[in-house]
């Protein structure tokens, strides 16, 4: 009877797998790859974008970036390579593709933050390291105390421990500051309606949060911008009369600053 039950369960399992599969994000992904294989780029992009409402993966952002590159939408291509690299920072394919797209879009450096030693390790790594050092030091000092070593040795160990802790705390602080900057980083995007033929078009940084406002400066699609932090909480933003959200952004070198519509930029850390 048990064997019979098992056989039936297996049989129905085989039958029901495709049914469950059909509605999953995996299915959407494979369908998107199929659409791409048949040359249906827009539908493939649509499928990938649909998945982004549920979850993301490095390969998903990588594929999406490839498709946007094929559509000459360099801004979105760069944005998605950056997202892919957030999830898989050592992927040489993404790094090469990103460099190629940047060169094609005449952009020199798309990540102005990626230039120091701290970037090599995540904020969590430094926090973890700090905690390890803290406890290792405390354990060592208490062990020396237990061994009844001379006070001089204990004081020396305490000083070395405190010095190390201070250094690590500074690294954690710097890494957190860097993470906050990444959180406020956005990539300039062209309006999708502007089409493929307008790859050289720019995004204006306006004086005021209004479409009719003149621009202070302009940036190319794919350039990195930083949203100013509000003095109260969150980011410097403004809601226009037709429910348009505006953000106050600046370039990494602070030479260009102005208002952009929220749909003119893509957040790196948000889906």
């Amino acid at each position: 009877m048990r064997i019979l039950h098992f056989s039936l369960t297996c049989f129905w399992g085989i039958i029901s797998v495709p049914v469950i599969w059909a509605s999953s994000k995996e299915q959407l992904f494979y369908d998107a790859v199929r659409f791409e294989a048949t040359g249906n780029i827009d539908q493939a992009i649509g499928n990938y974008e649909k998945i982004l409402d549920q979850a993301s993966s490095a390969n998903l952002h990588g594929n999406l970036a490839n498709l946007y590159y094929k559509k000459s939408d360099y801004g979105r291509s760069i944005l998605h390579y950056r997202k892919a690299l957030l999830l898989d920072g050592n992927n040489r394919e993404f790094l090469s593709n990103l460099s190629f797209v940047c060169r094609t879009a005449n952009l020199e450096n798309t990540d102005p933050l990626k230039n120091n030693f701290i970037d090599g390790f995540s904020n969590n790594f430094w926090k973890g390291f700090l905690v390890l050092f803290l406890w290792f030091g405390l354990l060592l000092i208490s062990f020396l105390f237990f061994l009844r070593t001379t006070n001089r040795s204990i004081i020396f160990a305490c000083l070395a421990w405190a010095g190390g802790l201070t250094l690590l705390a500074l690294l954690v602080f710097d890494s957190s500051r860097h993470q906050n900057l990444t959180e406020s980083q956005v990539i300039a995007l062209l309006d999708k309606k502007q089409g493929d033929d307008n790859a050289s078009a720019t995004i204006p940084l306006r004086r005021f949060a209004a479409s009719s406002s003149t621009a202070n400066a302009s940036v190319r699609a794919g350039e990195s911008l930083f949203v100013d932090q509000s003095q109260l909480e969150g980011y410097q933003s403004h809601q226009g009369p037709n429910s348009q959200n505006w953000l106050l952004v600046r370039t990494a070198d602070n030479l260009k600053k102005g208002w952009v519509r929220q749909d003119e930029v893509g957040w790196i850390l948000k889906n």
Partner: protein
Amino acid sequence: MRVELNFQVQPQRTGNFTVPAWKVMIEGKSYQVPPATLQVLDPSQQEKQAQLDLRQAAFLELPFPRSYFFEGETIMTSLTLFIWDRLPVNRIENAPTKIGESFSSNNLGKWTEEKRNVSRNGKIYSTFTWPVALTAAMAGTKEISFTVNLRVRVNSRKNSPFSSPFFNDPFFGFGREESLTVELPTKSIEIKPLPSTNRPSDYSGAIGSFRAQYSVDANQVEVGDPVRLNFSIEGKGNFAAIPAPILESNEEFKIGPPAFLFEGNEEIKFEGRQNFEFILTPQKAGNLKITPLNFSYFDPIQEKYSTIIGNEIDLFVKPGEKWIEPPNQNESQDSMPSTIAMSTNDLFQTASDPGIWHSSLQPKSIESNYWFWTFQILPLTGTLAFGFLGWKRRNKFNEDFRIKKANLSRKLNESADHRDPTGFFRAFKDLTRMQISKKDKSRNTFAFSSDELITFIKEQKFDKSLIIEIEEMLRLGDGLEFAESSSQELDFKDLRRKVSEILKKLS
């Protein structure tokens, strides 16, 4: 519009009677009513006939195409419900339900075919038919049955719908509804195991009659561009149990998992076309060959295995765009090997699988992790344990030291009061040993002789005058104890002061 005229007759004797044909006038038109026959039975015969009528009033029929099946084989048949026209059925309550677990079947929803005026056993029936795909789960002689419930109207005066005047006046009066269960008499059928002889090594459970096709969307692509490979199986058989053929990634192609697409009745999956779509991503340029796919199945009619052998497909892959990594600006040109000046990467390759899913791009803070805090209990416990044990150990040592010192000081004072030079100098020597023991815990100073003690003190870099004073006192003590020098002229008050100063300086 329908008008029914019902007449009630009461038989006076047994026999066969004919109600002759008669005419009826409707809106000036004359219609001929056909003659009707009536069989009047003896009361004992009447009961038998009622039972027979009851069995024939509603029944199920499930024909099998063959006398035996194979294990795992899917057979297509139909389940038909016959309802006698004179049975006052209001509705069919539910779809037929399978009894027994030896077979699996598709879900039977609403019937797919409905027929009226079907003649059987000298009665007129309405029939309702459901298509049934049955798959035998195990070998052996297995039984199967189906059941269905009907909602029938019965006379209110009667408890059972099957007692004698059940069919007398079913369409009149204020009746009540009752459920009537119709069950297919249990059918036994032999299920044979699949033959093990001549079974192909790649056989994966397909039973039926099939044809297979194998094609790719394009025959020229660039490296990294996905290509769709479609493998389709067409025919009749157990499509629901056919797994996708195995096609694994190799150095030439990255291959994603296949998509299952069935063209035909999805519910039954007996007849139609099953497509398996693979996405192949070429990894290198050149004229690549796609591994042919073979498909093996068992034909239950011919009772033998067959294999459809696929053809090799050529795919011309052009080299795509390449990224040439620029040389590192910081390194001198001389230090770079001339043969490998720069590396190249193929660009824009499509990943055929999604990889690891992440719910958010925002890195999850380590503090929000439960393990981050749990892990810290270990070193915290260790630190507290070492601290507590160390404190206890140190306190014990200090306490012992303090008691010992107090005893020796008392002994020193008592010896001075009693003018006992031996005791006085012994106490001084022990106190000196105690004080210097703190300087080097690795050596047991309590076992030192006077000479060793002096040597040790000299090593510790004390003030010279202090060393001389200690040496003098120790020599004086040794003289009194071992050379029996005279102690008459000793000023114990002065000695006590000197000893006190020395011990103070040593501490």
